[in-house]
């Protein structure tokens, strides 16, 4: 276990070091001015000097991301279940979902900011909206693809739709939920950024815009690194969940 973690860390360290070396080499050899591309040393200084500021903005973005994800996942799961359970809901909601999906959720960010202001609510709604569709559609597809043998079993047992969904369809659909979560982990941080670029008074995206406007390129890179850290930790969490559940449920 520890050996595996150490190996994982080692595998992550090597590309990181290579990237840093190349970055430094480009900066020293080409002589680009530091307001175009600051070296890793400068960025590290900016990270250190502005630790409080970056931490505060990271916290704001992260709580938006967390709340938005929770809402998006909850609504997505609920929608998928409702559609799987009720033929009438499928008939009624399916075309609406397809239509709604045709509107890029990212494009709605300005409208949402216009309606809900610069504060947290507009960011949370944007993130929830962007993560909602992949979760709902990936889970729903798996819920509806019960293997024929298990469908026969359920029918022969005389199972109702509700029990069939809870006992057969839902466990079968866990990989669908996980691929939805993986998409959400990719789109979520993007939605954070876009929400804050469209208009915010805090957050890492806001910090990036601000420092860019003031020519503080090193700080902009520092904020970018913090945002990458946020996405990476989200990705690690989803991977861990996926590994745990596929072991628990014997998929894979």
């Amino acid at each position: 276990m520890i050996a595996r973690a150490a190996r994982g860390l080692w595998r992550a360290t090597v590309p990181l070091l290579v990237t840093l070396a190349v970055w430094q080499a480009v900066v020293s050899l080409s002589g680009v001015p530091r307001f175009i591309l600051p070296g890793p040393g400068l960025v590290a200084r900016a990270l250190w000097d502005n630790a409080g500021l970056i931490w505060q903005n990271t916290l704001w973005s992260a709580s938006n991301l967390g709340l938005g994800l929770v809402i998006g996942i909850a609504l997505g799961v609920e929608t998928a279940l409702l559609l799987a359970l009720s033929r009438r809901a499928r008939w009624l909601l399916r075309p609406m979902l397809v239509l709604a999906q045709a509107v890029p959720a990212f494009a709605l960010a300005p409208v949402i900011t216009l309606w809900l202001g610069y504060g947290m609510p507009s960011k949370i709604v944007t993130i929830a909206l962007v993560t909602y569709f992949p979760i709902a559609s990936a889970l729903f597809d798996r819920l509806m693809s019960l293997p024929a043998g298990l469908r026969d079993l359920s029918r022969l047992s005389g199972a109702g739709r509700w029990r069939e969904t809870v006992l057969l369809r839902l466990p079968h659909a866990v990989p669908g939920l996980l691929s939805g979560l993986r998409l959400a982990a990719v789109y979520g941080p993007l939605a954070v950024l876009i929400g804050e670029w469209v208009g915010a008074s805090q957050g890492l995206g806001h910090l990036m815009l601000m420092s860019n406007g003031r020519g503080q390129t090193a700080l902009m890179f520092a904020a970018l690194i913090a945002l990458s850290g946020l996405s990476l930790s989200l990705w690690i969490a989803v991977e861990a969940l996926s590994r745990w559940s596929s072991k628990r449920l014997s998929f894979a």
Partner: protein
Amino acid sequence: MIAPAIHMAGSLHAGERCLIEAFELTLPAGRWSALLGPSGVGKTSLLRLIAALPCAARLDGRIAAQDSAAMAPRVAMMAQDDQLLPWAGALDNVTICARLRGERPQPERAAALLADVGLAGHETRKPSHLSAGQRQRVALARTIYEDRAIVLLDEPFSALDAMTRHAMQDLAAGLLTGRTVILITHDPAEAIRLADSAWIVTRAGIAPCPLPPTAPPRAPEAATTLTAQAALLHRMRLQLAPEAA
């Protein structure tokens, strides 16, 4: 539980095409009946019609229990594919049908059935940690747990190796006595071993075929079994040859 005889008459179609022309047969009550035939002839469709499962083929005629009560609620089925839940342990797989109906599962009875099929101590094992033969044993225990009067077996042993197959056949023969069992198979040896009566299914119809006078399960290595097997194989080849040509 009184096992009914099953009467089938009519013809089976898939779209415009005729799968089986006019047939009429009665599968005896509480006995093993084997339906022998090549793949794609419509044997599985007959089973699905008995079980009232969705089926691509259309029956012009009637399949019914002779006591004229509905058959579907009295049917348990076991297929070639074990149809186990990959995420559940053996015991939970045995009780799944009861849980699907919202009944309280009986873990003691399920554990006893798992012991009957030789899987004592494997209650929490998941299908991925069981061999193909062991998975079919779990599926058999699940079928018996249902305690239905009509048991449909759709080539349940055909994916197993020869020795495991013989063991499973004996096990199933012992545990399913007294029920109306319909065994679908393309293996003459299996029909000769297990069936009280057997039919050959072809496009021309469904014809009865003779079996040794001894009671099943017949020993696979006995001379009478082997002779009957040879005779049946010969007959099937004669009957199916024009179709193959």
